[in-house]
């Protein structure tokens, strides 16, 4: 609270990027957790909530005659431009937001103050919902080839690794420890994915400390143990996801890559994925592109090309494909690493898992995958996502790229994923929002020390509870494209710009009607119809019986219909937020109670929304950022790019 210099500013204008004429006037409040803009000059109370932890940068621009502009950029790619009448007020808001959005200690993070109405017992259980051990036993582990190792129980061998790890059965503790000493940050080769079908496995590690000539017996034995844990294969791949030049440069620093001659039966391969700095700059260019005011098609395509973003996405997907094919088609195990093994390695291993295993393409599976390859293996979320004020050079959109790879795959295989785009975007938001404890800190050890399991809530359980919002209506578990290895095309034209994420808040840019929402409403209706059908059949059966028994108990008949009137179902129809105008069953008058007349009016026609371009495609998340209810019946100017 002490950071709020000014809790309330009046006569603030929220400027519209596309059409400045449509700016809104209101009051800006600063609270401990949110900035809230409340529009004052309309009858409709419209609020825009911005979580402080989602604010990425605050920029004061040159004062104009109409006020002092304040540009707020968010990590979920929302960009807000306020205009504050008095410069000193603007400066106060600027300083407050600057401080509030860059907490200096973990305790300041939102997750430690976020207290939803959930009892303690339930909160604790929510954390138990995510069970990585269950995932490993789903893979068939432990078995005679792979064992659970407790060597890192106290994070002594590698402080950024999880406590529980799977290593080859034949890898003795001295071998593991020896190998860890020959690897950056002690990140020795450990199992990421195991294929029950053919015993091939994906292992991950950091780079070896090979320098120009160093060798390590234990590390060589470790790789041999991995090879032996795949009895049908006589060699294994070692995939270095970095560009060859970067890897060579590392040798000078005493690090590097495996020399094929020193290891028995390995095939070494570079992948050419760029480092975190390149990725950060690349995304920065994408964001600049998105901020352009009415760019031409050439501006956009040239900007997209020069950002290199899609090239990087393609490189990651290509690497994932290489590994998934090695596992599924060749039955060969793969060891993956980059430098420290927590960025590119996480990307590539998890992309390969999505391609390989249908489970990771389900709601539950994707959560498990992120927990496994990202959270538990020590992707440095707090550094990469800039949770705390820190080194800007540590920030990089590595997890964004993974989520985008999944999205690109969903575009190619529309029936193969149980979840929808909204699921990815919601996960993305919460990785940055710090509302839940899952992504706090940089490793499992740090989260244990922070006691996030005791003091915060878990995102996974929250997503699971709201899974209805995240279901892809086209998903069919038994579909041919759903099963087995996905074989995507990586021809450049198969990659699209993800406007659902980057232009998420530019609503005018998105399709005004959502096929997905439409289909989901139909599926809901279908389900209700199925229930009706069953109950009608029951009533029919009963009537037949009653008719046969006695004609003078007819009063019973109307009772029965009372119990089974479709009024509930009709009510159900109309109250559901179906994007299509509900149709009344054609002879419903008989069953309709007298007071149901008004509901028969198709009140939820979405007509004006389409015209105004405000079909609600927002995420239904507890984040309050979507609270701006700027619905007007005449929203044309809102997306009026056609200039005279």
């Amino acid at each position, binding site marked *: 609270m002490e950071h709020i210099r000014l809790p309330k500013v009046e006569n603030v204008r929220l400027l519209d990027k596309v059409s400045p004429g449509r700016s809104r006037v209101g009051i800006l409040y600063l609270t401990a957790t949110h900035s809230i803009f409340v529009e004052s000059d309309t009858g409709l109370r419209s609020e825009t909530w911005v979580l402080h932890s989602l604010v990425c940068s605050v920029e004061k621009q040159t004062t104009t005659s109409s006020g002092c502009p304040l540009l707020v950029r968010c990590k979920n790619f929302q960009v807000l431009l306020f205009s504050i009448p008095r410069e000193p007020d603007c400066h106060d808001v600027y300083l407050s937001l600057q401080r509030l959005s860059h907490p200096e200690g973990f305790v300041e993070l939102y997750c430690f103050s976020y207290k939803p109405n959930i009892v303690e017992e339930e909160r604790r259980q929510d954390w138990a919902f995510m069970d990585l051990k269950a995932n490993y036993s789903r893979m068939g582990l432990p078995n005679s080839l792979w064992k659970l190792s407790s060597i890192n129980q106290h994070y002594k061998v590698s402080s950024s690794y999880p406590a529980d790890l799977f290593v080859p059965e034949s890898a003795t503790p001295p071998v593991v420890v020896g190998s860890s000493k020959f690897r950056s940050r002690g990140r020795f080769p450990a199992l990421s994915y195991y294929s029950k079908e053919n015993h091939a496995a994906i292992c991950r590690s950091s780079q070896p400390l090979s320098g120009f000539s160093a060798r390590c017996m234990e590390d060589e034995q470790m790789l041999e143990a991995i090879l032996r844990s795949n009895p049908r294969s006589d060699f294994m791949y070692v995939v270095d996801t970095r560009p060859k030049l970067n890897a060579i440069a590392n040798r000078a620093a005493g690090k590097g890559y495996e020399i094929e001659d020193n290891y028995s039966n390995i095939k070494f391969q570079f992948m050419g994925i760029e480092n975190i700095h390149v990725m950060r700059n690349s995304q920065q260019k994408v964001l600049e592109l998105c901020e352009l005011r*009415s760019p*031409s*098609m050439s501006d*956009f*395509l*040239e900007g997209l*090309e020069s950002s*290199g973003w*899609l*090239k990087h996405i393609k490189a990651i997907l290509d690497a994932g494909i290489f590994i998934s094919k090695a596992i599924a088609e060749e039955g060969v195990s793969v060891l993956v690493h980059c430098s420290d093994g927590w960025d590119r390695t996480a990307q590539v291993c998890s992309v390969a898992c999505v391609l390989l295993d249908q489970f990771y393409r389900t709601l539950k599976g994707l959560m498990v995958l992120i927990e496994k390859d990202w959270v538990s293996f020590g992707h440095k979320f707090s550094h990469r996502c800039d949770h705390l004020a820190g080194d800007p050079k540590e920030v990089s959109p590595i997890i964004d790229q993974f989520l985008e790879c999944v999205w690109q795959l969903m575009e190619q*295989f*529309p*029936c*193969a994923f149980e979840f929808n785009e909204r699921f990815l975007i919601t996960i993305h938001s919460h990785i940055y929002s710090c509302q839940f404890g899952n992504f706090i800190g940089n490793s499992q050890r740090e989260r244990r020390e922070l006691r996030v399991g005791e003091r915060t809530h878990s995102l996974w359980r929250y997503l699971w509870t709201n899974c209805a919002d995240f279901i892809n209506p*086209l998903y*069919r578990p038994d*579909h041919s*494209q759903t099963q087995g290895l996905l074989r995507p*095309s990586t021809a*450049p*034209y198969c*990659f699209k*710009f993800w406007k659902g994420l*980057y*232009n998420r808040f530019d609503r*005018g*840019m998105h*399709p*005004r*009607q959502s*096929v997905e929402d*439409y*289909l989901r409403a139909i*599926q809901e*209706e279908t389900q209700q*119809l199925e229930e*009706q*059908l069953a109950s009608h*059949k029951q009533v*029919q059966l009963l*009537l037949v019986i*009653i*008719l046969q028994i006695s004609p003078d108990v*007819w009063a019973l*008949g109307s009772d029965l*219909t009372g119990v089974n009137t*479709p009024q509930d179902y009709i009510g159900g129809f109309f109250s559901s937020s179906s994007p*299509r105008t509900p149709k009344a*069953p054609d*002879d419903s008058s008989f069953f309709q109670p007298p007071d149901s007349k008004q509901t028969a009016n198709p009140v939820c026609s979405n*007509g*004006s929304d*389409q*015209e105004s*371009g405000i079909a609600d495609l927002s995420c239904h998340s507890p984040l309050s950022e979507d609270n701006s209810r700027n619905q007007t019946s005449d929203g*044309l100017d809102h997306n009026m*790019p*056609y*200039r*005279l």
Partner: protein
Amino acid sequence: MEFAELIKTPRVDGVVLHRPFMPTVEGTLCLTGHHLILSSRQDSAEELWLLHANIDSIEKRFVGSLGRIVVKCKDLRIIQLDIPGMEECLNIASSVEALSTLDSVSLMYPFFYRPMFEVIEDGWNSFLPQDAFKDLESITDEWRLSEVNKDFSVCSSYPPLVAVPKHIDDDTLKKVATFRHGGRFPVLSYYHKKNGMVMMRAGQPLTGTNGRRCKEDEKLINATLRAGKRGYIIDTRTINVAQQAKARGGGFESEGNYPQWRRIHKAIERSNILQESLIKLVEACNDQSHSMDRWLSKLEASNWQTHIKEILTTACLAAQCIDRSGASVLVHGTEGTDSTLQVTSLAQIILDPTCRTIKGFQGLVEREWLQAGHPFQQRCAQSAYSNSKPRQEAPVFLHFLDCVWQTLRQFPCSFEFNEAFLVLLFEHAYASQFGTFLGNSAAERLSLAEKTVSLWSWVNRPQELERLTNPLYEANSLVIWPSVAPQSLLLWEGVFLRWNRSSRCLDEAYDEMVHIIEYNKELQNKVNSLRRQLHEDQVEFCF
């Protein structure tokens, strides 16, 4: 001329056919006057029937005595035929070359084609101007149908019947025609029922360098304005291009002579540039070896998406003037047969829900393209692969279809037709067994109704309509405003990547969508009939 003279080798055995995403077929290749046929003579294998008119270019290569012909089609497909025997291969190649470049319209396949289906409704009579006008007459009496062009003498590219302001007589029209490019005097294109505003189209005014004026022209277009109202003239060319046109006798409406009109210039490119754009785009799409950078830069350099954005923006602007500013609009470019029609037809898609139905869209294509004199034969004579020097070819109609597809993508529930319908129109505009897209104007199409079959006769049968109907369609009576942001405009994969990437997974998704909707309908019917039955049972029970 007999086709037989051109066919040097009518039949070759042992030919192997390679097609994208289909198994190779070995069989007999036959050439007829209009088709290249490859059949394995097995019931199971699909035959290839390729219209010569669909062939854009052919290349031949030799590997030893094996000849290889690469056939590139106007629908952008590329197929390959391996022909044993050098002589056969040369003969086939030269015959196909000759047959696919016949200039005479009367030798075209539509004149030989006999329908193998029952015509339920003759498409030649489905969209007569007098029928369309009856509709208008019931709302307003401000317009009349003029027969001034009944013998095509006033304007060779106009139809015999055109709608003009009621108080403008035929003599005035004749005078105006002399002042407009190609005799294309301003005619009614669209009447906006909501507010009575209209959209007109014309050729450019022939002001020339000395600023010629025509009182009758001013009178005509002013007659469409309500008292005290201003209108908009949308010139699809940039001001520079319009200025340059003056030197060739053309020009634009000056503020001084048309004080009630505000002129807006847009930048829709002319045909030769558009054709180049198509060629570059298709080349970029067909090279699978590109890196991401190269692909994006080639996509950008083709300018295809830039044109799409410009056309759609101009159409939105026209629609906005009519619907939002409550003003009438006159659209023209140079000739008034290309960019003008793109704008007027797209504006109607945006404004008029009828144009988003299957029948309504056919009517739009008839009115705003065929009868309005878009020179289909000239524009669609070559596609992206042709080696011959382009003459007047341009993908003007394809651009229009692409813009419709973009709008369909953004409003997936507001169109009665699906993407397949748009692809079908693209294919038939370039090569068809039907007469609909033959010729360059209504005058040239006069005899077609008796001699050829209309595409609409074939499309408007239940089995075809089913394939072309959008399962998501629910009539939407509103104006639909598409986004023209670069992020919202996508490459039309269904045309440009159709033969380059497998569409299996996307097709499966479409089928799944249809299945979800069909199953819902089926259940609804069941519940309703059960409920009816239940009702009857109860009535019976009560009495």
